[in-house]
């Protein structure tokens, strides 16, 4: 982290960048938040550790409009989102100075709490440079420990890889954290009966409070104005009062980002209700891979997305019924 701070200060000082986009410490040991750093003294609060899950690429849409370059810290998986935004002309590559920061998997505080660890005062072992694979947690009720891997976000267990897809320079080592198959969770749902599927999603989605956190954090959901907020489809305005609307919202949201979603997992990370929203996006990714060939959004900045492409021999929609 110190190396990152030093380099950021250096680039600020020599005028290469006008500001730094990173994370600053929050009021709790596990909730750092995205922040701009423009002056030397701002860096007192700068933090980069296992809880810095936030994908900063979306902030570059607004940062691209500012004077001068912005130094942005991107983890390997964040770079996919950044590439996708370049492809969609939403960010200006020239306005970004990308430092690819190392990552050894990001932590999910809900998982730690889920282990019965409450009253957290401080956590050690979450530093990126830390070789340890155990977290030591000081709580009101004494010291607790848990394995780093057990506390990782779901998305890190199916990590796309430790390679940064775009950067100006790299700082820090990254670690491959994949220990599960990406599509297993989707396949498990696919194997259910229609009644079970319906019950599963009914249960999950009924928790939705339409706070729009998923939409706000999603780098692909970057419309100036969401269709659900405009009058273009007569679909806007109301709070969801029935069982259907959250389904409609989440299906359409997933559909709008289909072929564009990099599977960064931010939607699930930020959902205050703990809805596994990535299961929608990942379903589309799985289908796209199976029907139209392997495709990873954000892998590059110029390939044609699967929904703006076709072949004469594409599968027919009837395949859904045939597959059973």
């Amino acid at each position, binding site marked *: 982290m110190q190396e990152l701070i030093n380099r950021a200060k250096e680039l600020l000082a020599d005028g290469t960048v006008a500001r730094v986009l990173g994370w600053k410490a929050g009021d709790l040991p596990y909730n750092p938040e995205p922040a701009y750093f423009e002056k030397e003294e701002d860096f007192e609060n700068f933090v980069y550790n296992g809880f810095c899950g936030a994908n900063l690429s979306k902030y570059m849409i607004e940062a691209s409009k500012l004077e001068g370059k912005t130094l942005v810290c991107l983890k390997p998986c964040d770079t996919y989102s950044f590439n996708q935004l370049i492809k969609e002309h939403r960010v200006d590559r020239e306005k970004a100075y990308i430092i690819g920061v190392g990552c050894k998997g990001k932590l999910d505080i809900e998982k730690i709490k889920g282990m019965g660890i409450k009253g957290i005062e401080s956590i050690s072992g979450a530093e990126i440079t830390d070789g340890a694979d155990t977290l030591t947690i000081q709580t009101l009720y004494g010291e607790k420990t848990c394995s780093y891997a057990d506390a990782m976000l779901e998305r890190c267990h199916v990590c796309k890889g430790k390679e940064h897809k775009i950067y100006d320079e790299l700082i820090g080592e990254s670690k491959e954290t994949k220990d599960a198959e990406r599509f297993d969770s989707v396949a498990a*749902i*696919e194997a*259910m009966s*229609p*009644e*079970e*599927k*319906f*019950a*599963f*999603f*009914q249960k999950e989605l009924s928790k939705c409070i339409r706070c729009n956190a998923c939409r706000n954090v999603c780098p692909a959901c970057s419309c100036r104005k969401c*269709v659900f907020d405009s009058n273009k*489809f007569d*679909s806007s305005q109301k709070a969801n*009062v*029935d*069982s*259907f*609307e959250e*389904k*409609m919202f989440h*299906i*359409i949201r*997933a*559909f709008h980002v*289909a072929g564009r979603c990099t599977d960064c997992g931010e939607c699930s990370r930020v959902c205050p209700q703990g809805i596994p929203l990535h299961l*929608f996006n990942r*379903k*589309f990714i799985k*289908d*796209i891979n199976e*029907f*139209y060939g392997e495709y990873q959004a954000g892998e590059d900045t110029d390939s044609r997305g*699967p*929904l*703006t*492409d*076709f*072949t*004469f021999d*594409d*599968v*027919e*929609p*009837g*395949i*859904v*019924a045939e597959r059973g």
Partner: protein
Amino acid sequence: MSIETKEEFRPKIVAFCCNWCSYAGADLAGSSRLSYPADVKIIRVPCSCRVNPMFILRAFEKGADGVILCGCHPGDCHYSTGNYYARRRMTLLFSMLDYIGVENGRTRVEWVSAAEGVKFSTTMNEFVEKVRSLGKNVRLEDLRCRN
């Protein structure tokens, strides 16, 4: 012996038809007097690629029991490529509906040319039959819209 008194279930079915092939195919079915159930109501769109998944979900929300999309055969699109995009979009949408537990028989895409009045009528008969067998669409409907 009990007497069946339950009224026969009549589904609400929305059919989106492209102007150039399928709508004309439906016209041909009409002028050839090839009947299909009155449950089917057709909405004319310029091309199958005009059909937004929002329209389909909206239909279900408002109480439709089945939605079918008909367009020109692949390769014959009046606009060259529209139905190819529609095909991908609908494949993914239908797969998603299936994934959240909506019976996949409630959605269908069929390619019907202007000359295929017979196919149009057979398709609609089959589809209505299928939706009828699935019964009322209770999973997606907005309950407020029930009478």
